[in-house]
């Protein structure tokens, strides 16, 4: 038996967070006794990039190498992967959570009747049945969920597993595009933040809130982020009033992040904001108000004027 991993890419590059699912699958394989980890990649990619997935733990790569799949069409992807699963010997499909893979995983489950769980934060426990821990209530609690049925889809949360980088080259198998595809969605354009580190992939995030007083003051946040190699985020009020783009909004109804380090500047720490950051490893709050609720959630805090503190931190980072 083997384990399937669905990998996602954009503009010819496989997403780093998506590769974490391969390393997760390797660990799952050890538990359930499957050692073939098959990565499924749809669209045109460099052969060397596909082979390199072996480095992350894939033994084999199935690539449907057709430029018609270069855009991330939800229903087409789900259809192709469902067919691969139904024709193959794998009962388990693993992917990393993203705004795209949620859709694909859900449709695969709908098509194949597989049981499905998302936001998984642990390896499966197979001591009696098959269960995993998942994050619930937007990071405020966990649930242990048991899955029955032969086929299963697991959507894992980012950063739950260290990306393995010591494997061999994977064998790459090219499959033709099936000819029965129904292209339902027509993708007409993309709008992407250029050259920035994506919030979702970032190991460090620096976020700003209303305490920064205006969009013109974001320069120092961006400078600190650049020095740290971090992504920038913001609170909901800040994206609501248009100081920052919506895709930077971190929180309950925005992006949920789980970086190694989250630095909140001038963010009071409303429960809805904390819900988006509470699975970060280390939380730092910088705020003028000593009663800001963020200080109750943070590991480190500085009570003071961000306009004095942030440049000092940036200076110090640059001197390292």
């Amino acid at each position, binding site marked *: 038996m083997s384990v399937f991993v669905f990998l996602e890419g954009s503009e010819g590059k496989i997403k780093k967070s998506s590769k974490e699912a391969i390393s997760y699958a390797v660990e799952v394989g050890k538990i359930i006794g499957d050692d073939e980890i098959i990565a499924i990649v749809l669209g045109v990619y460099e052969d060397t990039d596909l082979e390199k997935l072996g480095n992350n733990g894939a033994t084999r790569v199935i690539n449907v190498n057709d430029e018609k799949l270069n855009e991330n069409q*939800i*229903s087409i992807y789900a259809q192709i992967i469902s067919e691969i699963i139904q024709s193959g010997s794998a009962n388990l499909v693993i992917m990393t959570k993203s*705004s795209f893979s*949620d*859709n694909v*995983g*859900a*449709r695969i*489950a*709908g098509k194949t009747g597989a049981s*499905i769980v*998302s936001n998984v934060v642990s390896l499966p426990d197979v001591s009696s049945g098959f*269960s995993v*821990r998942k994050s*619930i*209530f*937007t*990071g405020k*609690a*966990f*649930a*242990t*969920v*048991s899955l029955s049925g032969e086929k299963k889809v697991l*959507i894992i949360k980012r950063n739950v597993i260290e990306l393995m980088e010591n494997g061999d080259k994977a064998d790459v198998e090219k499959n033709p595009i099936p000819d029965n595809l129904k292209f*339902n*969605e*027509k*993708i007409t*354009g*993309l*709008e*992407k*933040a250029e050259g920035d580190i*994506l*919030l979702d*992939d970032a*190991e*460090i995030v620096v976020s700003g809130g209303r305490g920064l007083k205006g969009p013109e003051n974001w320069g120092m946040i961006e400078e600190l982020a650049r020095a740290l190699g971090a992504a920038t985020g913001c609170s909901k009020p800040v994206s609501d009033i248009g100081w920052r783009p919506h*895709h930077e909004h971190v929180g*309950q109804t925005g*992006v949920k992040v789980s970086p*190694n*380090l989250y630095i909140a500047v001038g963010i009071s720490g409303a429960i809805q904001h904390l*819900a988006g950051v509470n699975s970060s*490893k*280390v939380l*730092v709050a910088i705020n003028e108000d000593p009663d800001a609720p963020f200080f*109750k959630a943070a*590991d*480190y*805090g*500085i009570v*003071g*004027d961000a306009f004095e*503190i942030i440049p000092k*931190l940036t200076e*110090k*980072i640059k001197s*390292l």
Partner: protein
Amino acid sequence: MKILVCITHVPDTTAKISFTNDNTKFNEAGIQFIIGPYDDYALAKAVELKDTHGGSITVLNVGEASTEPTIRKALAIGADDAIRINANPMDSMYVAQQIAEIAKQEKYDLILMGRESIDYNNGIVHGIVGALLDMPSISPVMLLDIEGTTAKLAREIEGGKEFLEVELPFVAGCQEPIAEWKIPNMRGIMTARTKPLKVVEPVPFNPASGTVSYESLPEKGSVKLIDPENAEELIDLLKNEEKVL
């Protein structure tokens, strides 16, 4: 245009989450329940679409009788009628099967719901419903315009937006800023009391997953405060103690 809006009945976003019965049951004591915030965006968008294009809005919830006040609120906001599928929403697949069953009978032009429920956060019901009905499903949708039988949408992707077009009917998981949340007015609240709310028994379906137990987050240790005069010390701690730099 005939629109179905599926809503969840979930604890308010500021609720303190705790569990009872040896961590096997969510503690509902003192909890205020609301329409899921993402579902609220879906409902608000449905009201806007109805204002522009005419038609009807049916709101659907899979839940026991206790969810009816939440359903009535959706009626007060602007849905015309409601369906409650009388069942405990056991897992995403179960809920999706129930929604799909209703949609097969009623043939909606558009099925809207939130991108995810804020209790279980799976974010997959729309996708499963789409697959079961063999229609497109798109999430998280932040812009939606309809011209004739074609919809133009923007879907949020990591670090940006994807623009797409799709033919009706389809399923969408919604999020901000698709529409502004609507607050029910007095007239809405009055008429909601008499709008039809149909209770339907679920189709038999065995859920494939079940929650075994819950865990609250471990208590956080207290914050280590750093003197703003020596703010640089933070960097040393992050580098040497926490090893995150």
